[in-house]
């Protein structure tokens, strides 16, 4: 396992963009994803998003990982949607449920939207390292303590995962059969692993807290300086302007012309 955190180093336009811009783009992207209900628009947005990330040098394995994570929910939604929504021209009937084209389309549109949201949040973390993210949050007005908590928390995710794996091994070595029995007994089998992982993590967190204190964390006598800082460039202004224009156009199209409102038909 090579990923020390979610960050993939690279030199693409997205990597070089100011993290504040990336956070803003993620926000705009979220607005776009919620603005449309059309399945083709959602599919296109998702393809555009994944394509951009691939184009920025994010390896396919990483992108597939995210897709795999979202797979269960992304398949459940289109399957269940026709149960709750039955408007529109009848397609076929299965187990007494009236399945319509509109329902299937809406189901898939929602699934694409959720997967798109996952990739959007991942996009920031995949192309921004923690030191840049920390500075971005502080420059945006987040108090240093909170920003540090966020970035340390994020970088702890792989650590906690590693601890969990080590604890799983240790417990399996005691004769613990994790695979046996039904869903409930397997879930219950995870409890000792969770307990041991949490306790280990808390012990480490205690030492971390002391280390932070002993390095002056929380001092308010003088303003905190920073060895590393981010720079807003002209390219970021250009990108921000272009993004805002595109989103405004898209929203106008949706609000005025009704583009992308209907689940199956574009207008």
């Amino acid at each position, binding site marked *: 396992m090579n990923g020390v955190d979610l960050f993939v180093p690279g030199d693409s336009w997205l990597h070089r963009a100011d993290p504040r811009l990336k956070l803003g783009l993620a926000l705009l992207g979220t607005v776009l994803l919620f603005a449309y209900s059309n399945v083709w628009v959602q599919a296109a947005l998702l393809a555009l998003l994944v394509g951009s990330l691939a184009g920025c040098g994010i390896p396919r394995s990483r992108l597939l990982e995210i897709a795999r994570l979202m797979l269960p929910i992304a398949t459940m939604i289109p399957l269940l949607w026709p149960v709750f929504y039955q408007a529109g021209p009848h397609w076929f009937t299965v187990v007494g449920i009236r399945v319509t084209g509109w329902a299937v389309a809406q189901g898939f549109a929602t699934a694409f939207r959720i997967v798109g949201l996952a990739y959007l949040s991942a996009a920031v973390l995949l192309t921004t*390292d923690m030191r840049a993210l920390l500075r971005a949050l502080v420059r945006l007005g987040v108090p240093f303590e909170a920003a540090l908590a966020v970035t340390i928390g994020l970088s702890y995710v792989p650590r906690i995962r590693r601890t969990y794996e080590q604890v799983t091994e240790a417990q399996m070595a005691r004769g613990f059969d994790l695979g046996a029995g039904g869903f409930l007994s397997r879930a219950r089998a995870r409890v000792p692993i969770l307990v041991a992982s949490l306790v280990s993590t808390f012990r480490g967190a205690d030492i971390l807290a002391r280390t932070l204190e002993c390095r*002056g964390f929380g*001092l308010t006598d003088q303003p905190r300086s920073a060895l590393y800082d981010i720079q807003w460039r002209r390219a970021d202004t250009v990108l921000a302007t272009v993004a805002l224009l595109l989103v405004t156009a898209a929203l106008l199209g949706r609000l005025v012309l009704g583009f992308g409102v209907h689940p199956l038909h574009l207008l």
Partner: protein
Amino acid sequence: MDRIVLVENLNYSYPPLVPGDPVVDALQGISLTVRRGETLAVMGPSGAGKSTLCLALCAVVPHSTGGVFGGRVTICGQDTRTTTPAHLSACVGVVFQDPESQLFSATVEDEVAFGLESQGMLRDDMRQRVDWALGLVGMSDHRLRSPVVLSGGQKQRIAIAAAIATRPDLLILDEPTASLDPAGALEVVQALEGLRHETDCAQVVVTQDAELAAALADRVLLLDGGRVTHDLPAHEALRSPGLLTEHALFPPPLAVLNAYLQARSLPVDWRTVDEAVAGVRRLLGAEGTCRRS
């Protein structure tokens, strides 16, 4: 200021972990002094209070741990009852035992600079200081690496660099080599030896390793059951295998050999392998046939 650490009749007990437990005195009647440039090794059995003493020297005890605190601890002229660990951080650097848990920054240089950022130092000054600290521990080539990918010995060296970056008057190290393999431990010892040459900060090193204490310490403080049992010059303490064994410490092998031969009327006092080799050759009448160890 010459007297960096002044501990006067320190008593401390932690709040009980499980309510209803009896209160255990972690430290009782501790008094000690550490001067500028001195290295004090704190040694003793598990539970003797060594780590608690370290925490008392950086004001984590009592500020972050609560409990009952008696007596006085003065670090760099400041009373720890009224100074928080963060305020003391300008003149105290701390390195804990576990290399995994005490590094949290994205890059090595951020880790080393954290304490300087807390002091509000200007960026150019910080860059110079980070260079200096990394150079002292031999990690200058790793400035932009993530601390997570480093080996145990490298991680501890970064922790040391981060602790000394603020040029503290006191450096506290709580069992810095306990979690490391011999190669990593050697890296840390070499870094600390280099530090002694380059700075005049006082050092307090908690360790169970008598050979480490022999390499670094001027004095040895032996603790047992929360009390100071001995405060001796290092060479005296580390050449008494009986004393060390009493305190659940492994004596250096040469000290045990010396004691064995001294008990059989051979007044030897070999401090290094080379001295021992020369001495053995002399004893067996084979001087002049030298062989490097």
